[in-house]
């Protein structure tokens, strides 16, 4: 179990928990962040910039601060 902010680029993972206050939780779930959903990080912007995360058909960008609210389980790359 680790945080989305610690996930390596290209490593597949599944969301295991979202630990956020109501407003942030709401926003995340509206964009498709739900428990059990697979995701991976496509790229990271320079200078500690945002992450580009792919969840199913949707690409979302978010900062490390927000990504640290999302717990994930990693899968081995097959």
């Amino acid at each position, binding site marked *: 179990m680790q945080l989305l902010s610690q996930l390596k680029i290209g490593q597949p993972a599944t969301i295991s928990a979202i630990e956020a206050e109501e407003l942030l939780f709401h926003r995340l779930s509206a964009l498709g962040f739900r428990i059990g959903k697979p995701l991976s990080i496509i790229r990271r912007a320079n200078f500690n910039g945002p992450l580009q995360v792919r969840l199913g058909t*949707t690409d979302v*960008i978010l900062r490390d*601060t927000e990504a640290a609210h999302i717990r994930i389980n990693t899968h081995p790359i097959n």
Partner: protein
Amino acid sequence: MKRIALLGMPNTGKSTLFNRISGASARVGNWPGITVDLMSAKILIGGHIAELIDLPGIYDIHGFSEDEQVVRHFLSNNAVDLVIVLLNSSQIDRQLSLVLQIKKLKIPAVLALNMADEARQSGITIDADNLAKELEMPVLQISAKYGDGLPKALQAATQIINQNQPATDPQVIAQFLQEDNQIEHEMEDLIQHHVQMPTTFTDNTTDKIDRVLLHKWFGLPIFFAAMFVLFQFIFTVGKPLQDGLAWALSVLRSGLLEPIFASSPAWLSGLMLDGIYNGVATVAAFVPIIVLFFLVMSMVEDSGYLSRAAFLMDALMAKMGLDGRGFVMMLMGFGCNVPALMGTRIMRSRPMRLLTMLVIPLSLCSARLQVFIFMITALFAAKHAPLVLFSLYVMSFLTMFLTAVLFQGQYKNAEPFILELPPYRFPTLRQIVLRGWHEVKHFLVRASKFIVIGVVLVWALTNFPSNVPPASAGTYAGQIGALFAPFLDPIGINSQLAIALIFGFVAKEIVVGALAVIYGMQGDALMSQIAMQIDWVQAMSFMLFTLIYTPCLSTIATIRSESKSSGFMWLSIAWSLGLAWVVSFMFYQGARWLGY
């Protein structure tokens, strides 16, 4: 009259669909219960005249953003006969929640699944017929962009309208909205049974483009280079059009209007020709460039590149207390500051919204662009012109960054930054043309309201009292200029330019028109007259002041209404005026000290 509302999530092509159905007949209107304006259009549907309303794009009816509140307030204050819900087919797994929320409210609805082609390409198959049975509403796959499937969708809407069911009762809706949802579960259930979706979705084209445009090191340089090339394109294409139109307008004056007014009294021909015609014609000559500018802007906006700019710039913006979206608003402000200010509604944290609203008026809007093109053409050699204009854009960014850095302590915030990255899309010719037409219409409305009144006032001030020569120090304009001289002399702005600046408070579109009236000339003659009177240092100082001080009354009014605070509005006015003076002073005195 029947009322149909168009609802959907952001980036689903809702405005495209609205424009396609309404053609060019849309107008902006006020609605009970909400403070913002919504676009609406009258359309003919099944023998009824119906009003189609474009609601803001939202993720969730129960959400907390201002747009989501707007939709809630609209539905709980206005009866509707039908809602057309528009979803992006390839994101149906999460967007379906919006349909279920509407269904819960018992509002008659038609579900339109947009971008059916895009979904098919990524291997998503949707069983629309069975989905329709389960949802108990018509489900149609369409392409808002190309119009595919649209007749069928409208037919389904017509059928519902023709059933003449009673419209929704806003009070009941309001009550329903209080209650909440098992919607999540229902949605998962429906998706599991009726939609097949590959687990990982790769849009190859978008990925390939992103690999270059979002490159770690080249991404930002490419972005700014692309912007520079686009601006170059606008001027290479727009300049000849502008020159042609200016020439045509002066021929019209000498060939047709001057003979007509030859026998009328001097004051009337003065007012009509040197006042209204010169003023309006000088402004009108810029219409081609402005239209071109908006066409290019809307292409960039619709392409999905702006969200990429937000991604690339976020780290830098965070250092100034803003985020990537703030950068996008700055870019939107290059078109017009007003919609950019309204765009800040997507931000939930008030401090961040205010900070963003404080910087937006400093972005070089298309109206200021007219003033700069005019002054640059008059005073700089053609080979220097692009560089001077580019330096003004750089200056615009610098003042925005400076403002954000200085004020970020006052507007601390912890707004989360989460944004969807849509795939790249190419707007169709129809979209581009419609958008251009809307801008021309907008300009003509402004022209008839502000510019004509403005130039008539300027003409009166420069021609009265009538016992002194026009535009001399003895006229009212000259006296006003003298009044401001202590402030404007140190920054190299003479009394004629001062009058133009004062009217520029109302709208920057008036500035060049006012100059035409003040000097009683038009086109090349006007430019060479100004070039004789002031040098490039004064011109640059004038442009810097124009760039930084309050953009226009509409912007001020928008700041007031969006911030709901007069104090904030005054802060914004005082800051921009003060900064404008200081920057112009430093430039003018510095350049003079260096011997220019």
